[in-house]
């Protein structure tokens, strides 16, 4: 019996450690959603925030701002990261350049977002002001692109690496060019992994606050162009909490953010699963 008990203790502790993750997630989700969900209504989603955080208003313009800023980030980061990953994996051999680029992506991913934001502020908001309009959707989106890029690049590269070499050989062996092989065999096979990388990057962009705080401007009006200042949901949440202590609206906004991210995750998972199944002929 004594021997058994000595086995039970570490197992129990490890079980607790594993369960802790789940419990923490559930507690956070439950807490935010229970406070925030009651606030969500058609009115909340389609009405603009009031001046000085007045009650009874919505978050319409901030949803729009989040979509716009994230969209810009993805439009810039997706071709760069996927293109970069294709170049690294398909056109270079394992060499110094490749190691350096991969290391660079890792360091970029590890730079604190406030520092990326600082750079975005100095470069896009100040230096490129005539083009970006200063604090704007464009400045915010381009800054976020720096944060999406390394995540998506690394995951795309892994996805391409996982495509069996035999498929490339098979395609080249039929007299297909390298580019044809990449577009018709390699990319379709790696697509689920590539999309996963982009979605993770997108999640990062939607949730980012510090970098946005320094680059997007925070104006609550509905944006009409990419050069307008904007206030995405995360920044709005921060502002109404710190400036107006409006916890109610903050919970509502948080709930919308969480639901959006959960929905994106689940829908993509589902789409990619069925795509993979189709690929495998199941």
């Amino acid at each position, binding site marked *: 019996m004594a021997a058994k008990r000595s086995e039970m203790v570490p197992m129990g502790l490890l079980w607790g450690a594993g369960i802790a993750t789940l419990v923490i997630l559930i507690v956070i989700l439950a807490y935010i959603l229970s406070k925030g969900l009651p606030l969500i209504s058609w009115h909340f989603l389609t009405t603009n925030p009031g001046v000085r955080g007045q009650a009874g208003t919505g978050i319409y313009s901030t949803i729009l701002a989040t979509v716009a800023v994230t969209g810009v980030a993805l439009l810039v980061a997706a071709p760069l990261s996927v293109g970069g990953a294709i170049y690294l994996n398909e056109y270079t*051999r*394992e060499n110094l350049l490749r190691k350096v680029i991969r290391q660079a992506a890792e360091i970029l991913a590890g730079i604190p977002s406030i520092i990326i934001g600082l750079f975005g502020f100095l470069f896009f908001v100040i230096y490129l002001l005539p083009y970006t309009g200063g604090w704007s959707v464009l400045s915010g989106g381009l800054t976020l692109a720096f944060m999406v890029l390394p995540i998506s690049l690394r995951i795309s590269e892994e996805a391409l690496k996982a495509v*069996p*070499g*035999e*498929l*490339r*050989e*098979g*395609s*080249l*062996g*039929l*007299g*297909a*060019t390298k580019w*044809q092989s990449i577009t*018709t*065999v390699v990319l*379709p*096979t790696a697509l689920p992994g590539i999309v996963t990388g982009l979605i993770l990057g997108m999640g990062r962009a939607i949730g980012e606050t510090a970098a946005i705080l320094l680059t997007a401007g925070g104006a609550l009006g509905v944006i009409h162009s990419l050069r307008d200042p904007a206030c995405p949901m995360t920044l709005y949440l921060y502002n109404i909490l710190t400036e107006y202590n409006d916890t109610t609206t903050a919970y509502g906004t948080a709930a919308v953010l969480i639901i959006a991210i959960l929905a994106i995750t689940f829908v993509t998972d589902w789409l990619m699963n069925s795509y993979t199944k*189709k*690929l*495998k*002929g*199941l």
Partner: protein
Amino acid sequence: MNNAIEISVKDLDLWFGKFQALKKISIDIPKNKVTALIGPSGCGKSTFIKTLDRMNDLVDNVKITGEVVYQGRNILDSDTDVVELRKQIGMVFQKPNPFPKSIFDNVAYGPRVHGVRKKANLNEVVERSLKAAALWEEVKDRLNESALRLSGGQQQRLCIARLLAVEPEVLLMDEPASALDPIATSKIEDLIYELKKDYTIVIVTHNMQQAARVSSNTAFFYLGELVEFASTIDLFERPRDKRTEDYVTGKFG
């Protein structure tokens, strides 16, 4: 007897980094016959066959010298159009490697990348190729199913059909049956027997019975050297080299 030469190899040396995998290989591969390459693992036979359609280009740190003359030119020259070359010299790999696409799209892949777009033409090529690869009867009702649902043997015949669809002159086969069960293997061998009427075939095998069954000529490779090249009957029954004799009589493998 027709003694036309399809591919003429002269003084071929190949290094992987500092390791010399092929040493001064010279061999004339006859047209419209099956040439078998045998030898123990690591003897260079697979490396050799990959040189014939420049597949070794994909490997790091390879250095190749010598000549591989096909249609009057040395295909090892750096200005060789490898895409065009691989249309004419096709390869079937050890492990069946169908694309994760439908059966139809697998066979139509080659013609499509070479610009065939018309559905009627594609239908015709796909049917003809699958028939030539002895697979048509088994798959004609499920051409739109994923190729990955076929059995290993069917997948390998599909890969052969996929190759035939680009109408090559030469078929290189790198142990095409080594991953298959005996029944699937005998189907592949029957198929090779049929195909040799129209194609020059070079097949790597470590199965000597297979070499004896399908080929007219056999080359014995050992430690990167071409030890002996003769008609299959002579090589097995009257080997000139002691090493060949030891190998074909099973003294080592």
